[in-house]
């Protein structure tokens, strides 16, 4: 019984080095066309800004942070990163369909913890990451990946500290994963 299900569930992934080459070429093309690299957290930021603007427009305009991203001609969602992130979703969907990974809604977790634990951890992780990404001027795709490829010191800094601190914290939270 166990061996059958094991064979069924070995998913097909592309060779990571190949994936890296593809990603690097994509990054290069993105630089060539747009002058900026890839990014991801920016789209969520735009979502936050437009939500706040809809719900509490006065507060948004008064705030020093939101007002920077609000413009009168168009919604803050009308920006490059938002469209790119929508594309990321679609691309993920395409690949998932191609490789047969789009299945029923599920929570992925180590067998040593419960789904509930995983959900709570994911939520907390997201909050921390979101907060940190603003301080860090980008996330792993925007600052670390694209920043370092463009020879920015800030990008390199984020990359080193992000992964470095990840390794430090990994020890304390190993129950979550292994």
């Amino acid at each position, binding site marked *: 019984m166990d061996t059958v299900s094991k064979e069924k569930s070995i998913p097909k992934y592309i060779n990571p080095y190949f994936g890296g080459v593809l990603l690097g070429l994509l990054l290069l093309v993105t630089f060539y066309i747009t002058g900026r690299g890839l990014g991801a957290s920016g789209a969520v930021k735009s979502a936050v800004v437009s939500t706040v603007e809809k719900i509490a427009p006065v507060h948004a305009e008064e705030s020093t942070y939101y007002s920077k991203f609000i413009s009168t001609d168009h919604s803050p969602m009308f920006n490059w990163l938002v469209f790119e992130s929508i594309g990321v*979703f679609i691309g993920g969907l395409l690949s998932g369909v191609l490789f047969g990974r789009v299945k029923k*809604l599920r929570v992925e977790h180590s067998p040593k913890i419960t789904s509930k634990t995983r959900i709570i951890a994911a939520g907390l*992780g997201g909050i921390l990451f979101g907060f940190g990404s603003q301080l860090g*001027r980008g996330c792993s795709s925007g600052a670390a990946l694209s920043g370092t*490829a463009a020879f920015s010191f800030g990008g390199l800094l984020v990359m080193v500290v992000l992964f470095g601190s*990840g390794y430090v914290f990994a020890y304390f939270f190993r129950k979550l994963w292994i």
Partner: protein
Amino acid sequence: MDLINTTIMGPLIPLGQIASGWDFVIALLIGIAFGFILEASGFSSSRNITGVFYGYNFVVLRVFLTAVVVAMIGLLYFNYMGWIDLNLIYVVPTYINSMVIGSVLMGLGFILGGFCPGTSYTGIAIGKIDAMVFTGGLFLGIFLFSELFPALESFYYGDSLGSATIEDVFGISNEKFSFIFVIIAIIVFYVTWLIEKRVRKTVNPYKFE
């Protein structure tokens, strides 16, 4: 002495070479390619991603470092051939205090959540609830930051080095840095290959989803 004959000089959009309606179409297409590559490499699974911290799956390092190396070398060759003007490429500005703390928080969030924003979008696409929760958390986290911004403002802008490039800070030319980076990447790949062989023997091969 010959002046390099340029074909089309990049970066295209900042130099006005593309009609304005196309920006967002291009963004979408680039995003689709990005998402596809991420998901196909296995980044839609949080357990794959965190494997890099525990030694059982190094896909993150492999994809990440390879991508940076390819992009760096590509940029330098493009720049040499006159196809792109490296000076016009966006450099992530440096704010030491803010970025260091931010990166530490992101590292913790990475370990807890097992995702980063880009990969969480692909996770949502294949139906992972934990990815959806993570993205929701991102929303809250950014919201929290925006609300607290007035209190954090001076910290946010502190210790700025402006648009410092690696050359500015370390004095190494871009070419030398990319070469050093390649060597480091190769060493990392070799070491992680060894580690993975040993760890996989002791850790039960886990079921992916």
